[in-house]
């Protein structure tokens, strides 16, 4: 079965410093991978998705993620954190094992940004 593991439940950064949110995936097949963000009291919004094209994927709000098959990782990064980035982030996988329509979510990483 496909799954994702988010390695940190909480990450704290200062405004203006880099952000790294870690995600490892498990899949027998080439997966599709997503990062979603959830701001307080809001629904989930897609940040970016990987679908076996370019391994470096750029998303909204300056975020990007790199698919590394050898490390089974799909870490989310941003060069400089902004206060508005404080939210919960979910790494998500889908693919042949799940049915492409179905998404399997990680447990989430809460990003805290201090001034």
């Amino acid at each position, binding site marked *: 079965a496909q799954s994702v593991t988010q390695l940190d439940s909480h990450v704290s950064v200062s405004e203006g410093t880099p952000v790294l949110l870690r995600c490892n995936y498990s899949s027998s097949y080439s997966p599709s991978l997503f990062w979603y963000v959830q701001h307080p*009291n809001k*629904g*989930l919004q*897609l940040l970016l998705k990987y*679908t076996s094209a370019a391994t470096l994927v750029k998303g909204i709000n300056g975020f990007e993620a790199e698919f590394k098959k050898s490390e089974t990782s799909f870490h989310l990064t941003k060069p400089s954190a902004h206060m508005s980035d404080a939210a919960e982030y979910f790494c998500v996988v889908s693919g042949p094992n799940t049915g*492409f*329509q179905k*998404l399997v979510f*990680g447990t989430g990483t809460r990003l805290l940004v201090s001034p």
Partner: protein
Amino acid sequence: DVKVTQSSRYLVKRTGEKVFLECVQDMDHENMFWYRQDPGLGLRLIYFSYDVKMKEKGDIPEGYSVSREKKERFSLILESASTNQTSMYLCASSPLAGGVYEQYFGPGTRLTVT
């Protein structure tokens, strides 16, 4: 823009009550989904539907049922609410798979069962 709306943001119900959560999408999407979100557990799929009157169980269907009589509307039903169903419920929709499509989420309904 895709819009997914949910009938209530907050709901308080008593144990044993029958509860209806409604979701409507305006983008003519074939697929619709119901998830529950709990701290430390992420989102877990309850049910999904790929067409009108069609449904499939997700990972945690026990205690829930669904109804999809119209393409744009997908209802989640708690036949007899229990306190362990206190949670955030999220509805989502996506186009029919033929590529890889993201899901579009509503704002969620926070349900408290007392």
